């Protein structure tokens, strides 16, 4: 029965995604940014659904199993502070620039802002490299969920394959409109089912107060599990949202700047709705299912579902987890496909040798190839979903000073942007190889997250090198900073 519900849900998502194909206007702008026609509610749902992934559903409950309620402050409420602030100051401005100049990708903007092809190419490579671990989180989450909920009857490799297959089909058919519609459906599904799961499981545990009484008191406060410096510096992790290629694409779909108003206001509320059940169930689960070590804790939510809510409900809840996973994978996949088509195939003139049909085919093949690589990696990797995400977010967040400089600092130069990207690559690689084998790695074991240092170095490199190099030309500044006449 559980498997039947999951497959019915996957079929529903496929139908919604592919039905949107009937509204396709036959242009590249329609395929990649839905002709910039998306309204406030759908924008909120698709932005939020894209940001909520296996990281927030499975990873957060797994982390809360070890670290307690502090995980909500660490990632939940810090997102409620940072993400709408970025939408307000950065998202709206990038939407306006994108609309004015007809941009479809971040790389197009950065390349033209500093008039440098090489800068665009470097950024493309770095962004794709950072998206892969993020994709990996989703594929691994799908495999884990299905395997645990069916008691291993459906192996991990089938779950991962299913997630990849469904996403490829509706992204290829429906483009951004299909993605946005499927995301809206899936966000509503996982928000509703998250609440249903929570009440169903807590009810079976004998009520909230009984369940909390069985939990180690250390998990009900932050002091012994999270260090003050960790809380203070973790705030840089959600900054990554500002640099995600898929969020950039979603910003461009907005009908007008006003469309951003509701997403900005209601984003913090949506964060609370999803993260409260995730974190609390992780904490409560530690009282019932003991002995999960390291990444094993990422299955705590699914184990609770199997134990307390088998049958149809388990199917619904697994569908909710799938919803969260796929609503991110689809946008990431589409964004990468779009970047490859526009920033490589078209920009470097390969399109002159290909028909429109061939270009689309090449873009889709790139997406399928990238997902295939991710899928293979998911089979050989067994690291904590949460920690993988943190490394990916560290890279994206550290590139954010480039976007800030592009938008707000006229004196910034392409050499400053180069220096910033190079500093991120060097320091990220350094910290990654130092820390990836150490669970909860912080610099010198002080609690300071590596992202803080990489971000600061990236910002400093941008400022110092920009000031040491020739100021940008007037025509470029007029293009991006002149007040609209």
């Amino acid at each position, binding site marked *: 029965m559980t498997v039947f519900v999951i497959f019915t849900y996957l079929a529903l998502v496929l139908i919604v995604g592919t039905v949107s194909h009937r509204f396709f206007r036959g242009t590249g702008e329609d395929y990649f940014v839905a002709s910039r026609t998306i309204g406030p509610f759908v924008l909120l749902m698709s932005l939020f659904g894209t940001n909520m992934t296996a990281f927030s559903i499975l990873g957060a409950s797994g982390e809360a199993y070890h670290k307690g309620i502090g995980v909500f402050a660490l990632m939940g409420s810090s997102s409620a502070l940072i993400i709408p602030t970025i939408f*307000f100051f950065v998202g709206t401005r990038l*939407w306006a620039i994108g609309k*004015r100049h007809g941009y479809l990708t971040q790389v197009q903007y950065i390349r033209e802002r500093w008039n440098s092809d090489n800068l665009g190419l470097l950024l493309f490579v770095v962004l794709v490299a950072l998206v892969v671990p993020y994709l990996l989180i989703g594929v691994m989450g799908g495999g884990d969920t299905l395997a645990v909920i069916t008691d291993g009857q459906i192996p991990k490799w089938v779950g991962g394959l299913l997630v990849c297959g469904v996403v490829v089909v509706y992204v290829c058919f429906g483009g951004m409109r299909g993605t946005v519609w499927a995301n809206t459906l899936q966000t509503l599904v996982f928000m509703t089912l998250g609440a249903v799961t929570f009440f169903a499981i807590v009810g079976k545990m004998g009520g909230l107060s009984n369940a*909390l009484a069985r939990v180690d008191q250390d998990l009900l406060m932050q002091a012994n599990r999270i260090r003050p410096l960790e809380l203070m510096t973790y705030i840089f992790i959600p900054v990554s949202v500002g640099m995600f290629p898929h969020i950039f694409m979603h910003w461009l779909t907005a009908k007008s700047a006003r469309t951003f108003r509701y997403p*900005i206001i209601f984003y913090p509320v949506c964060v609370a709705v999803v993260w409260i059940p995730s974190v*609390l169930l992780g904490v409560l689960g530690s009282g019932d299912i003991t002995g999960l070590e390291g990444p094993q804790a990422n299955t705590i939510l699914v184990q609770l579902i199997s134990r307390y809510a088998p049958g149809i409900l388990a199917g619904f809840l697994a569908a909710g987890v799938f919803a969260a996973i796929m609503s991110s994978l689809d946008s990431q996949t589409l964004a990468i496909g779009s970047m490859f088509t526009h920033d490589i195939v078209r920009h470097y003139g390969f399109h002159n040798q290909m028909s429109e049909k061939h270009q689309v085919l090449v873009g889709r093949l790139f997406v399928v190839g990238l997902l295939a690589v991710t899928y293979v990696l998911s089979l050989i990797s067994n690291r904590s979903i949460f920690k993988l995400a943190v490394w990916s977010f560290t890279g994206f967040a550290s590139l954010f000073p480039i976007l800030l400089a592009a938008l707000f600092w006229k004196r910034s130069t392409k050499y400053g942007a180069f220096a910033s990207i190079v500093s991120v690559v060097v320091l990220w690689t350094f910290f990654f190889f130092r820390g990836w084998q150490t669970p909860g790695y912080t610099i010198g074991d002080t609690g300071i997250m590596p992202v803080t240092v990489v971000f600061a170095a990236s910002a400093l490199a941008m400022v110092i090198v920009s000031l040491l190099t020739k100021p940008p030309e007037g025509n470029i500044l007029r293009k991006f900073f002149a007040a609209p006449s």
Partner: protein
Amino acid sequence: MKNSRIRWILYLALIAMYLLHKDFWFWRNPALVIGLPVGLVYHIAFCVAMAVLMAMLVKYAWPSQLEIEKDDSVDK
């Protein structure tokens, strides 16, 4: 003039929210309030407060020049 003062007050409020996010005063307190650990209740309230602050930013500090830009592109 008045609007620009409100705008700056709201920007300062964002910085204040960053400081309020570090709830060290509940750091060692596992007590329950309305059935939930106090440290969690505080951060749920923090999310609600952020929604209110963002609503005020949208109302009083909206980058209205972007709306003009939109109208321009529509005219073209």
